[in-house]
Each structure stands twice: as C-alpha cells, then as structure tokens.
C-alpha cells in the first residue's frame, strides 16, 4: 500500500482487460441465445417441483435454482431441501 501510486498504475491495464473479458463472456451468452436469457427456467422449475412432489412432500420454497456462467462451462445448480423424514411420504420404489 505504501507505493500506492505505482501499484495503481501497474493495475490499470488489467482492469480494462477484466472489463473486456466480462463483456465478451456475457455477450456471447446473450447473443447465442438469440438475445434470450433462458426463458425456460420458470417452466423447468414448475416441472421439477411437480416431479419431485410425486415422491416427496416439498413446498415451492424448498427448491432453489442457481446458475453460474463461466468461460468454458455453465452450471445449473438445483438444490432441493428435503423434508424431515417423518413427514416424508414413503417413496414408491
């Protein structure tokens, strides 16, 4: 921190590169989807909940969908909070 003036100077081109990288990544996603962000997510969520309900007792709030976009891969993370075992319907397997 004591050589703040120098360190800031050295970092300046880096933040511009970060900006470019972030934009390229974001725009690649937006363009490839025909400027559509995944509009199927709400429907996917309904369907998921419907399927899970066939086997256990979950409320709408127990399902959480997260997305993380990265350079190479994007991941869709679906978290389902399981009901307490006593309340769970026996799974038909």
């Amino acid at each position, binding site marked *: 921190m*004591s050589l703040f003036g120098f360190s800031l100077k050295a970092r300046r081109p880096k933040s511009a590169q970060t900006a470019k990288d*972030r934009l390229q990544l974001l725009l690649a996603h937006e363009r490839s989807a025909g*400027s559509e962000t995944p509009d199927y997510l709400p429907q996917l*969520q309904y369907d998921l909940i419907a399927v899970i309900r066939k086997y256990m007792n979950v409320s709408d709030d127990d399902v959480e969908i997260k*997305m993380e976009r990265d350079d190479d891969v994007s991941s869709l993370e679906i978290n389902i909070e399981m009901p307490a075992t006593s309340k769970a319907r026996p799974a038909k397997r």
Partner: protein
Amino acid sequence: MTTQLKDKPPLGKIIVITSGKGGVGKTTSAAAISAGLAKLGHKTVVIDFDVGLRNLDMIMGCERRVVFDFINVIQGDARLKQALIKDKRLETLFVLPTSQTRDKDALTKEGVEAVLNELKEEFDYIICDSPAGIERGAQLAMYFADEAVVVTNPEVSSVRDSDRVLGLLASKTHRAEKGASEPVRPRVLITRHDQGRIDKGEMMTVEDVLEILAVPLLGIVPESQAVLRASNVGVPVILDEPSAAGKAYEDAVARLTGEDVEMKIESEKRPGFIQRIFGRSA
C-alpha cells in the same frame, strides 16, 4: 439467518436513485450507495428498474449469477427469494436484477408495489435504480419512494432534467397522490464534480446547482478514475480500492442514514513524485 438483529423490525425505507438524464451516474451511485449501506450493517437490496437494458448486475459484478429477475417475480414465474442475488462480498447486500429481454410494459404498478411490500418486511433499505428518461420505468422506480437521490452533473442538460424529475417526485408519486403528510424527500447528489474546471470558471459550482434546484445536497462526488476501474471489475466503487469517489459516497451514505457529516469536496489529486515515494495517507 442473515439478520442478527431479530428484535428490531426492518426499517423498510425505499430510496429511488433518479436523474432524468442518462449517463450521469445513476447505476454507479445506486451500486455504491447500496454497498455503503450494507457495509454499515443495514440489510439492503438494490433493484434494477431499467427493463430491457440491464446493467446493474454488471456494475455489481453478479451478471453471471442471474437466473430469475424482477419481471419473473412480478409475473409470478419465480418467487422473490429465488430472484434475489446475495452479494459475495457483503452478507447484508442483495441485488434484484431486471429482465434483459422484456420491455417496460412488463412493469405494472400493482406488481411493483407487491414486490416492494414484500421487500419492506425484510430489508432496511430498498434502493431503486431508475432508468434514464421519465417513461414508465422511471415513473415506477420513483412511485413508491420515501426518499429520492437526484443524481446531477454540474452541466446544463443534467440540471434541467433534474429539475423536471424533482417536479415529478412532487406530483407523480404515491406520497404526492395520496396527499401524505410527508412528501418524498428529495436530495441532490452531484457527481463528476471537477474542482479544477470550476477554478477555471468552466464548470458550475455546487452553489450554482443548488441555487437552481433548491433542494438539499446529499453529497459531492468528484470526477474520478476509480469509477471506471470499479465498473471494469464489477465492484461498487465504495468496496474497491480507496478513492476520493469512494470516500464521497461513504459520506453521502452516512448522511442518508441520518448522520451529520461535514460537506467536503474530495478531489482526486494525482500523487506527486514525493508522495509516490513515501506513499499516500488515504
């Protein structure tokens, strides 16, 4: 989970960041102010009202984590909890992104009100980042506000547009239409302030702007290289490396929370040779 102060009900204060004119620093200010409030421990959410031209997510650095948005919540396709993005730096900060694909007609007064009412149950501060202009998005961003931050550059078109927006705040808001005892409380935040140009007589002074607009001043944010840097990396300027702009926003945030902070004009001095050798004390 995140609210430690369970006994205290949330403040539920709605603050719109508006300006009329585009490019004056609304989103930068919304990001900085919400991060500043969260940093002080207030549970804060910042909402992007610029439907179709989403940008708050980039300034906050959460653009890769958007799944559901404000419009999904209004239309009942997702629940609010799912659309809120929790900031990775501050425990008390949340972002509600808008839709990139819909248009402004997707915003309804009833929908916005329902979402804001739900947020009021949980948050101390609800920061509404208004789009430029005075169309539907901007009108709805200000409609339910308790307070307004009018972002203004010391420049003729910005001041003129701010004046127009102040008129709308006094007439086209819920508080105005319901004849509330307290109207929306407006304050001006002057951004891109350049003391050097003022000294040369090339820029209107803070006093000039306040004389014209006749509203109290919330703060003076200097023209600063830190603002572009912060937007490049997706960090609100208040959370990025120490800067004059960051300091000015911190003071403005303190004033928003009711503190009496002396008004100072920060300026970004380029460190001289000697200062660079021995370091700066800020």
